[in-house]
């Protein structure tokens, strides 16, 4: 079974530029998450999708971050314009279920963003 795919693995941009990350979850997984992991810290949830609907985006900086999950499968996370503090690893994860039945999350390898 293929795992969660993410691209690109690495991206370096100047501040105020834009960047987009792509995620393809495990086939059949209804729930998709984007987490931000700053160096030395644990992952912080940015947004959770259930199929193609947003369940939780309370910690997504909506003035610069946007995410979509078209057709309930692939997802794209965009940052525009980027700030220095956005330098982090962006992790995509998927799971069969969500909410009170939150079980195991399957993570991709992450996309490491460096903002100069």
């Amino acid at each position, binding site marked *: 079974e293929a795992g969660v795919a993410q691209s690109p693995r690495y991206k370096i941009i100047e501040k105020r530029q834009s960047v987009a990350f792509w995620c393809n979850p495990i086939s059949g997984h209804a729930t998709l998450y984007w987490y931000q992991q700053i160096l030395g810290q644990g992952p912080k949830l940015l947004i959770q999708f259930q199929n193609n609907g947003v369940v939780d985006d309370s910690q997504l900086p909506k003035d610069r971050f946007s995410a979509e999950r078209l057709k309930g499968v692939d997802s794209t996370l965009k940052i525009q314009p980027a700030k220095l503090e956005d330098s982090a690893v962006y992790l995509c994860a998927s799971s069969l279920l969500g909410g009170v*039945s939150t079980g195991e999350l399957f993570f991709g390898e992450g996309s490491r963003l460096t903002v100069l």
Partner: protein
Amino acid sequence: SQQGEEDPQALSIQEGENATMNCSYKTSINNLQWYRQNSGRGLVHLILIRSNEREKHSGRLRVTLDTSKKSSSLLITASRAADTASYFCATADVSGNTPLVFGKGTRLSVIA
């Protein structure tokens, strides 16, 4: 805000020794999970323990949960150099209204 807090922040042991990491959390939970992250990689699920369970084993891993103290521990027995990684606890809130929340992690170094 992050729910779980792991202790210690960093741990260095010799190969063959046991490693114990602790996690404390603040609110009532449905379950608690432990994940491992090798340097530069994604997180890998290790074990899930439900709020009505007190202990769970998986290979060399032993997890305990004390809901009265809002704490959990992860024990890795007979550690190997390959166990070198960061370990995170993550909690699923009992309300079901919040997704999995991760702590800051424990960095484990196993010296051969």
